[in-house]
Structures are given as C-alpha cells and as structure tokens.
C-alpha cells in the first residue's frame, strides 16, 4: 500500500484499435474521495479510457496504478475485487434475474468470497436497494425496469462490490430533469461515505454541479484540466465541442 494520496494514477496510457489511436499518452491522477468529471465530445475516448481502467480493454502502453498497485495486467474481475466498480453506458442487467439477485452476484463474488460465498447476501442487497430507493422493486425481474430504475440498479450493483472507486459511465443519459437530480443525489450520497467517483457525462449541468475537478478529452488526448468553472471558459474545450 502506498502512502500516496492519489487512489488512481493513469500514466502515459495509450490504446490503439488497428491504426486508430483511441488514447494517446493520457495522464490522470484521482485523489481519494474526489468527485472527478470526465467530459469530451462523442468518440473522444472517454469510454475507452474507462474500459482500460476497469479491465474490459487492455491498454497498449503506460501504467494504471490503483491504491499503489499496478493493475494494467489484471483481468476485470480482479480489478473489481480490488475496489474498482463501474456502471455501463448502456445498462447491462442480468436480465434473467430479479433486481435483488443482480446485487447478490457481486456480493457473493466480491464481498463474501472469503466466507465461501455463504454470507447473508440477501439482507445486504436489500440494504443497498433501500439506499437507492429501489427496495420495492427487489423481486421484480430486471428485464421489466424503467430506464431510470435500470440506471439506479446499475449503480446499486456496482455498490454491492464494495468499491473504493465508482466509475459512472453516463448514468444519466436519456433521463428527465427530475431523474437526473435523483441520480445525482445518489452519487453525492455515495461520495459522502468516502467513495471516490469518476463521472462521465454529456449532461454538462450535471458534471458542473457534481465535479470538483474536470478533465476534457478530445481525439484521445487531454486538452484541458481544471475546475468546472475554468473548463467551460477554456477556448480548447469550446472548440472541441462547438468546432469554432
């Protein structure tokens, strides 16, 4: 364990798909407990970066250090067990299971695997669902949820892995104003319990309200870093988004 304050250090990370450079020499430091925003136009490499951090993709160059440990060689489930959880841009529920069972999977495979998968996972799953306002849907099949409920369930499932770092990949895409506030409140609440959060979002007002620090990616490179206020003023960011 390092005494380093940053929980996640992404150092010179590159990722190529054939001849296309999706990420070029990306450097990010995320401190423990931080609320970190990641923005950028479509195709700028946000999700690729998240996939490299969570293990869905392997980075071609550079290092990813989490809690003082180099993790870029580890498979995704090992990273989840070390404390990195994520939600997906397009929700990926375990659709043959109920909402509660969806949470039991990470509880059994992460939190309770030391106890031979025999812990009281149902009570714990229920507790997490209550925190998300999904308790009344516990026994509903996850294939029958509405969009906002799916988003909440994705976050709940990520939380069931007891993460130190939660990566929320466009958890608010397609939601109405009230629903955005609802999800935002949940993320604030989780952060208050000490969980570091990386938020990827297109809804600017949500990123601006939530983040303490924001990074803007464009064409696989970081073009700007700073407070939400300074980011929107940055000419590079304006150019990337508006093309002016």
């Amino acid at each position: 364990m390092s005494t380093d304050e940053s929980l996640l250090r992404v150092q010179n990370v590159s990722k190529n798909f054939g001849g296309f450079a999706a990420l070029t020499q990306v450097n990010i430091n995320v401190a423990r407990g931080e609320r970190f925003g990641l923005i950028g136009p479509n195709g700028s490499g946000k999700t690729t970066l998240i996939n490299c951090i969570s293990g869905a993709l392997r980075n071609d160059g550079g290092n990813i250090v989490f809690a003082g440990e180099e993790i870029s060689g580890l498979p995704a489930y090992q990273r989840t067990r070390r404390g990195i959880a994520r939600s997906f841009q397009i929700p990926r529920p375990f659709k043959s299971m109920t909402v509660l069972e969806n949470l039991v999977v990470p509880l059994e495979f992460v939190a309770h695997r030391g106890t031979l998968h025999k812990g009281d996972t149902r009570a714990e799953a229920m507790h997490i669902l209550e925190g998300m306002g999904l308790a009344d849907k516990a026994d509903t099949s996850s294939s029958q949820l509405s969009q906002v409920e799916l988003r909440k369930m994705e976050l709940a499932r990520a939380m069931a892995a007891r993460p130190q770092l939660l990566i929320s990949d466009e958890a608010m895409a397609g939601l109405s104003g009230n629903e955005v506030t609802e999800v935002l409140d949940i993320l604030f609440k989780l952060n208050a319990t000490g969980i570091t959060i990386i938020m990827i979002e297109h809804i600017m007002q949500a990123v601006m309200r939530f983040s303490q620090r924001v990074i803007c990616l464009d064409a696989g490179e970081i073009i700007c870093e700073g407070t939400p206020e300074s980011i929107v003023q940055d000419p590079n960011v304006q150019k990337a988004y508006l093309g002016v």
Partner: protein
Amino acid sequence: MNERSWTFWVGAAAVLGLALLAAFTVKNEYFFFAAYVVLQFVVLATAWNILGGYAGYVNFGTSAFFGVGAYIAVMMIKAVNAPLGLQILAAAAVGGVMGVSCGLLTLRLRGIFFSIATVAVAIILETVINNWRFVGGATGVQILRPPVMEPFDSYTKMIFVVAALLAILAVATARYIQTSWIGRGLRAIRDNEEAAECAGVPTLKLKLLACAVSGALMGAIGAPLAMYQSFVEPASAFNLNYSVSALAMPIIGGTSHWIGPVIGAVLLGSVQQIVTVTITSELNVMVVGVLLVVFVVGAPDGIVGLFNKYWKRRRGAGGKP
C-alpha cells in the same frame, strides 16, 4: 441440509431403489436395454445443460466427449483389462481434461464460433480413431463381456443400474451447480459476460469449470457403451445424433432448471425407443427435429417454462401457490 435438499435426495434414493427393484424383478431384457439408453440421455442432456443451459455456451461436440469415453474404456480393456468402475473413472478424467483443453482453446470465442469449434473437435477425434489400429480403426472392435458380478444375473441389468447411478450423480451435480454461487455466476455470464466480469465473476475460470464438469460427465457415460453393445465402432460412438439429442433434450425440457434436461431426456428418449420398436429407427431423428422446431417456436423456455407460466397465471388469478 434444507427441506428442498431432503426432498431431492429422497427422490434420488427412490429412483435408485426402483432401478434395483426392476433389476431383480423384471424378466424382459429389452426393458433394460431401452431404459439404459434413456438414462444415458439423462446424463448427456444434464451434462450439456451445465455449459449450454446455465452459461449459454452451445456445445455441438457432445459426441466427441461421449465417443472418447467409449474409446477410453476400449483402451483400458485392451491394455490392462480394467474393470467397469475403473473404465468409467478414467473416461471421466479424460473427459474433464478434454473439456478444460477445449475450453482453453475455444472459450475466448463467443456465440456461434464456440459452437463451430466444438463440431470440429468431434470430427477430428473421429478421424483419429478411424485411423488407429489398436482400438480397431474404422471397422470397430469386439469386446468380450466379463462374467457378471453378484448379485446381478445379467450384464445388461448391471450396466442399467450403473447408468442409473451415473444419472443420479449427474443430476445431483447439476442441481448443486444451479443452486450455488457457481450457478449464479454462470447465469450472469449467460446474461451479460462483460457485466459479469465487472461484478467480480471470474468468467474464464467458471466457464472452464463448467466445461470440465460437463466433459467429465459425458465421458463417464460414454465408458459403459463398450460393454453395453459388446462392440464399438467410431461411426456410432461419435455419431452426431448424440450431439443433437443432448442439445434438443434440455431445450425441450427447459434449460434454466436441472429438471429440464431430465424431463426432456425421459420424454424424447422414450418416444425414440417407442418409435424405433413400433415404426422404424430412421424416424427417430425426425421426431427429435420436429419436437425441437415445435418447442423453439412455441415454447422457447421448454416444458419447465410452460409450467412456470401456468403457475404464475394461476397465482395471478388469486390461487395460492
């Protein structure tokens, strides 16, 4: 042990008891001959379902594992004259190792690619056996049955009881997997592999485990074929019909529950036997085909799915479960 486990084990003991009772009372040898085939399909369908049903990886190579089991038995008999128990154990071990090796080679391929790779394995193995003189090559090999063990009075009856034991073992294994954390992990893989991995499920390890268990059970039930027929030849041991039936039976019975493959195997296996005796054995394959189409179109969740739907509707109408 909870109440459900008790019910299951009492049921399993009852099945074994019935099998033994039949072995000592029923005189007609054909009954055991036919029942053996049905039990063999219970094992194959149950084994297939562990990987195909729970994890959603469709294996078209059941005949490869089954055939290898039969030929391991042949080798054991020819080389060291091993008893049946030892043949089964060896076949299970080789089937398991084969499952893991096939898994390592092919499990990174998803969907249709995995299925095609498993067909290839079956064809390669059949070709190897076809050209291997020691085990009889393409013409096959005649096996002399050893004298029957006490208290049985015929070898067919004994082998029928062995098949019943293997069927109970297979179903108990499938049931354990389904109800435990392993089954939940496999279901997560079937629903969404990437999300499963991100939920902490070691997807490759679980798939390899499923391959190993599935392959071991298929190999184990292949072993008694040599003694059952007193003759083994590659074309029948590696017959594609085993692959098709092992896939059709769980789909017809229902893949989500351990009872599904059992229902499918008993139903389809019995119908096949009846058709063989009363009409012609050629019609067998058509029966499987027609039933498969009917179920895939009309009841994709199989008989178990139909039952669940009916149950839910009744409960929804106010009836108590």
